[in-house]
């Protein structure tokens, strides 16, 4: 059974790239295009090894999503990585406050993405 990763991003192209990369690497991927949908997916799928989320999203932003996820027993210790930009130092801290495990700095390429993911969920 491959590990399931939830990717939450309102940008279809980023989501497409992330999903493609992860699937190539053998992960199972579930997607959502904003925080509130991400939360719904997380609740319904349950067995998720890692959550990858963008921060700037409509409806529910990434920070809110992380806070909400941490409230769920199943996601108490699940690694959550946020996608952020280099200028977002404060965002990183806010993210950690909200319960994020770490971050991936945008722009990133598929190799960098996998490297960071392997850091929090070693194969």
């Amino acid at each position: 059974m491959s590990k399931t990763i939830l990717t939450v991003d309102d940008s279809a192209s980023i989501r497409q790239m992330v999903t493609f990369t992860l699937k190539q690497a053998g992960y199972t991927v579930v997607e959502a295009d904003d925080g509130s949908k991400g939360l719904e997916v997380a609740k319904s799928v349950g067995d998720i090894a890692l959550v990858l989320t963008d921060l700037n999203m409509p409806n529910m932003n990434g920070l809110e999503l992380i806070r909400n996820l941490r409230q769920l027993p199943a996601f108490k210790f699940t690694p959550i990585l946020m996608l952020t930009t280099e200028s977002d130092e404060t965002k990183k801290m806010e993210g950690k406050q909200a319960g994020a495990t770490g971050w991936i700095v945008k722009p990133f390429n598929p190799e960098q993405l996998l490297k960071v993911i392997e850091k929090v969920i070693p194969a």
Partner: protein
Amino acid sequence: MSIDMSQFHQTYLEEAVENLAELENGLLALERDGNADLNAIFRAAHSIKGGAATFGFQDIADFTHGVETVLDKGRDLTLDLSAEVTAVLLRAVDVLGELITAARENRKATANDRLACQQALTDICGDGTPKAASARKEGTGGHKMMNITFKPHPDLPKTGSDPLNILRELGRLGEMTLTAFPESVPTLEELEVENLFLWWEATLETEHTVDDVHDVFLFVTDEAEITVQVVAAIDAAPQAQPVEQTLVAEPMTDRRAPENERRAGNDRRQPEKAPETAFIRVATDKVDNLINLVGELVTTHAMVSQHSSRVDADGHPMLHSSVQEMAHHTRTLQEAIMAIRMMPISFAFSRFPRMVRDTATKLGKQVSLVTHGDQTELDKTVIERIADPLTHLVRNAIDHGIEIPEERKAHGKPAEATVELAAYYRGGNVMIEVRDDGRGLDRDKLMKKATEKGLAQEGETYTDEQVYQFIFHPGFSTAAQVTDVSGRGVGMDIVRKNIQSLGGNISIETEKHKGTRFIISLPLTLAIVDGMAIRSGDEVYIVPILNIMESIKPTKGQVKTVGHNAEVMDIRGSYIPFVRLSEVFKTEMGDGSTRPEDGIAMIVESDHERIALFVDELLGERQVVIKSIEANYRAIEGVSGATILGDGRVSFIIDLAGIIKRANREGLHHAPVKPNKSKMTEEGHHVV
């Protein structure tokens, strides 16, 4: 792993166009109301930049960085997004538009304003655009021994980090000896199982740098005390000094944040905004293929239905009810699939706020734009092809229709004019109106011009509608001065032609000093046409209902020969050309009728020319799925496409403009078509 990023380019660029439109409309709203969803605007810029950098569009990423920085400062209230700033941002939107378009077209961007605009953005930010701090600290190289301590805070697991993972990762950097210190583990009663009370010390023999080691702890630097110390260089690599760094978590003190969040929450609840919908992107050819297939299914079902009707109903009661049920499902499926191609007209309307603003500013007029029915859906192709005609109409309205503020005040009107774009359904059509509250069309001026141009005869009377229709003639312009906004009257004829090519038509209502209203009627979709099936000889054709005024069974003597081979039909005192379809098409006659009284004359109109089209029989109205004949053949004059009938045979869909053109050319009728319109109009506008 190597992944070809170019496969995502198209998705990204489409998305960028949408984000750019959102950015632009947000900025326009900001400029207009001084209030807009800054988070949404920022997000749009942010998405453009993030994707651009990821997918290798460095120029877009770099340029958007400046835009994003300004917006970020605006969002944080550290910068006033004044009208001047917004104007620069709108300039930047134009530059970005060109950069994105260039990328889509795979060419070099020609944005002349790019550098100046970038500078303007930098100037706004005062101390220069913050550059991405990407300088990577170069650590010490060479083989060395490090001492590392890792004292996680008890709540480290709550951020999803697993300390053992981190230690394993550290171990992969070299030869590691690890000691755990459990002395702070509390007694069993006090132990909180979710917390962590261990800390570790490691000796690492590695070729990696101190930075590399810190990278291992990257995500936990705030949740742990970490020290890394190089104790010895093992090989000859020059070792300047032992490096020591201590990182302690600081309390988070970003007081601005909660306020931002709140504001974002409020802004997001904009009542007029349509609810967000989840989208997937699908290549249009896939959808078209679905439409084709469902068309096949409808046809096949018609065949099954036809065959089953011959089967004894008493013997097979289930067969008939199943066939009926299948009919229902097939139709529902067809509707559902057609709906895939439907898009809200807001995709076409979204370009107007900017255009209206720019045009009005250029002409020194005050115009506000109001749109209605943004969520009215119609076929994607129709939306794409209606955008240009609409642009022309709106531009014309501002240029010719709307007065300068002084003139408006003189007529007791508010200085600010209103241009309205409205979309709504009527019957099986979508109506789009372009309204203005300007000076209205000047009937006398139009008549004078029409007479000069030989379009109207002196002494004749014309209905208002007829007079207004003159503006759709090529080269007809009443603008006293040719402006660089609306040009020289080229356009209105193109507008009408484009609308007609979509199977639609356009009419005008106007009142002096009150305003003008252009009413466009369009079919919901291009893939289906409402038609009348008719028989001519052995063949069945489809005539678009839109063109049919009425159908008449000619009486003896109602059709008269004119000259050698032309015929005209007397319809309540006016003569219109009588055109036999079989002659225009030169198809084999079969058992087709030659005497007018044996067939049917359809009074049809296209491009304001009216003819009586003679056919053998009307077979009834039906909706048909349009298929291309040019995929395997070439265009046929007088035919706009083909469809497949219930019996599986091909039937051509008639293009009346082409029929009339061909009939005129071949002299199949000599009756006057254009100038002598006055007689025809006594008939008024009777429509079937």
